[in-house]
């Protein structure tokens, strides 16, 4: 039993840390730290910086330009990125469609798309869910009919994240009504500039434009944009879902959130004393820190087992998803509570990096405050998306417990 990182892993961490200290643009770092809005360019630009240093795609195999890091190295990288307030890497290309293309895409697809993803040239988004097909994804109805050298796609996708920025979308579409619902699904790559695609913003609970409906009306997609075989999309979709679930615990993000919570509690006043001195509030922090201590080790146990056995993540990650999502939600909740009455103001403009608190507010309203209540609201999504926590419990019951 050895809880320590190897000297090589420690050296790797130092290398990453040094790189990040120099590489994250200060304005972007500050936006991330204070929860201000990031632009499309902030995020793509960060991907380009990573790519320039050779860190564009940590877990991709080296033959596709990736680093070929172990899951432990990738974890260290993500932890350091979170600590350094680096922006998130956009996952839809890097972690979702790319592994599918590597495993099932044509050489042409691989050669065109993978370099553009790693280099931050294309923004991808996901076309999975539909209004009638959420957890029950196989009941999707967006159709792709063959017409000459094209598919003609009609239908609607929803819960599409950041599609307003996207150059490409990968879609599950129905190409056959035969047999079981899973059987007639195909996996298509669609250029977002194609005629007939429209994007309707869905404003989320905290008032931001983060997700969309995407409508397809007679959208012509070249047959060459089919991934793998027609009607085999369900296999690729499941493959993708397994890959999506690798960083389920979000330990790095939780650590940053906990650190921010502690800073806030040390600065906020209650009855003339720091909130951190209030035993009730401090105990709530302590409970979350204990949960995080446990989660960090559980996460490393799972990751190191994957790395050692060289196998893809299994159902164990469902436990990480449940605990990680609950923890990030609880941290957000506690940060809101740290604000007291200052949790009530909704200053939409305060999420712009240029915003300066008016003199009256500056007196009491800490610079971290503007996004916190909205983050509490928004974080409710983490126990819903990527397989709701109820679905995760189903997975544990079935796959691990054999119930």
């Amino acid at each position, binding site marked *: 039993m050895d809880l320590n990182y190897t000297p090589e892993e420690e050296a790797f961490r130092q290398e990453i840390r040094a790189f990040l200290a120099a590489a994250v643009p200060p304005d972007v770092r500050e936006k991330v730290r204070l929860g201000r809005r990031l632009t499309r360019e902030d995020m793509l630009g960060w991907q380009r910086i990573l790519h320039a240093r050779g860190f564009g795609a940590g877990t991709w195999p080296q033959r596709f330009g990736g680093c070929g890091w172990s899951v432990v190295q990738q974890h260290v990288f993500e932890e350091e990125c979170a600590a350094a307030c680096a922006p998130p890497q956009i996952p839809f290309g890097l972690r979702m469609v790319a592994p599918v293309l590597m495993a099932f895409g044509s050489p042409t697809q691989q050669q065109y798309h993978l370099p553009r993803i790693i280099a931050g040239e294309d923004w991808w988004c996901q076309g999975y869910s539909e209004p009638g097909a959420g957890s029950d994804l196989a009941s999707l109805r967006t159709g792709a009919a063959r017409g000459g050298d094209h598919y003609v796609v009609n239908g609607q996708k929803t819960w599409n994240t950041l599609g307003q920025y996207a150059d490409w979308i990968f879609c599950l579409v129905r190409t056959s009504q035969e047999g079981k619902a899973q059987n007639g699904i195909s996996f298509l790559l669609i250029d977002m500039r194609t005629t007939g695609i429209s994007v309707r913003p869905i*404003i989320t609970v905290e008032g931001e434009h983060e*997700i969309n409906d995407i409508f397809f009306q007679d959208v012509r997609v070249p047959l060459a944009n089919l991934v793998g075989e027609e009607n085999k999309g369900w296999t690729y979709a499941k493959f993708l879902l397994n890959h999506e679930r690798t960083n389920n615990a979000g330990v790095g993000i939780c650590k940053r959130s906990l650190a921010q919570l502690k800073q806030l509690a040390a600065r906020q006043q209650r*009855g003339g004393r720091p909130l951190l001195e209030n035993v009730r509030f401090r105990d709530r922090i302590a409970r979350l820190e204990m949960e995080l201590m446990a989660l960090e080790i559980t996460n490393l146990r799972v990751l190191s087992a994957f790395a050692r056995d060289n196998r893809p993540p299994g159902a164990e990650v469902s436990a990480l998803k449940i605990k990680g999502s609950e923890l990030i939600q609880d941290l957000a909740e506690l940060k809101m509570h740290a604000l007291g009455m200052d949790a009530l103001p909704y*200053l939409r403009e305060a999420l712009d990096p240029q915003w300066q608190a008016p003199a*009256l507010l500056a007196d009491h309203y800490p610079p971290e405050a503007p996004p916190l209540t909205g983050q*509490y609201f928004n974080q409710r999504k983490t126990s*819903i998306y990527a397989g709701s926590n*109820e679905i995760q419990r189903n997975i544990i019951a079935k796959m691990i417990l054999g119930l």
Partner: protein
Amino acid sequence: MDFRYSDEQLGLQETLQRFIARDYTFEQRRTFMQGAHGYSEAAWQQYAELGLLGLPLPEQYGGLGGSATDVMVVMEQFGRALMLEPYLTCVVLCGGLLRDLASPAQCAQVLPGVCEGKTKLALAAHESRGGYDLAAIATVAQRERSGWVVSGRKHVVLDAPGADLFLVAARTAGSPGDESGISLFLVAKDAAGLVMEPYATQSGSRAADLAFERVTLPAQALIGTAGAALPAIERAVDEACAALCAEALGAAAALNEATLAYLKSRKQFGVPIGMFQALQHRMADMYVAEEQLRSMAIVAAAHAREADAAVRTRTVAAAKAYVGGAARFIGQQAVQLHGGMGVVDEHIVSHYFKRLSMIEMSFGDSDHFLARFSDSLLAASS
């Protein structure tokens, strides 16, 4: 023993429900939120006509002399329809404070306008950097010549942007934290030296920070006895907390209804998701939480004007803390059971969730009130 609303109260409830169905739908509410002060002035005038604005105020000033339970009827409907108008702050909090603390002349000057919907009040009491302590007042009122000069700042004054008059807590003696030495003043919105920084709140209404830069007031701006306002302010805030419990009840009950309907209509894997036992049990727990929440809202209303301040404070504290926790549970689980539909602005569920969250954060979160209640156990045992 009878836990039902009276016939008069049921009549009031029905009137409000009819009004809401016609004039305060979710879509109408959305337009009200865009209004100058974030609510519907027309609705406010309707409330005046229905007698709501004088409901808890004395009859000699145009009110109806109603009880805290009468107010509960109104606030429950405010919760159900997520109504935006400043009923809590203007009528319950400030109206109740004037009723209890002001002289007959002051009441006669202000309250009729409140009852008629012509005058809106807001309470400027909090200034403690996110704290909830009503004694933590640093704003100072100094006697000068025949009147007072007020200097200081107030934070997160609810419904301030639409208010005509402010009730301002200021210190005429002592230091921040002292229970005595706090006085209450009536200040017009256009008083020279009064600066306002308005903003929206997370649940759709408005608030502001206020700065008093040597605001000069006449002697008669003082409400009640100099230095002795805190007990009345605390009482009024307790009554407001009881009203918030009722509002939370309305919102939580409506949210449970919406969630139950969703469980019955939303299909996944070929069946309504309400067929899944894990979700059935969750919904059962939400139902139980609503029943318990309702009981605590009833208790809070029954004790909101309790003469014994210690009993009132500990009972309302228990209710506010309990209701905050139950409402949080219902709110979070309703969002969870709605899945993605629970986190979008276009669906009412997220608005109920936000309002329930902000009710908990107003005047003190559940930890704050648990602490008050818990500490009262010590006093009781000694």
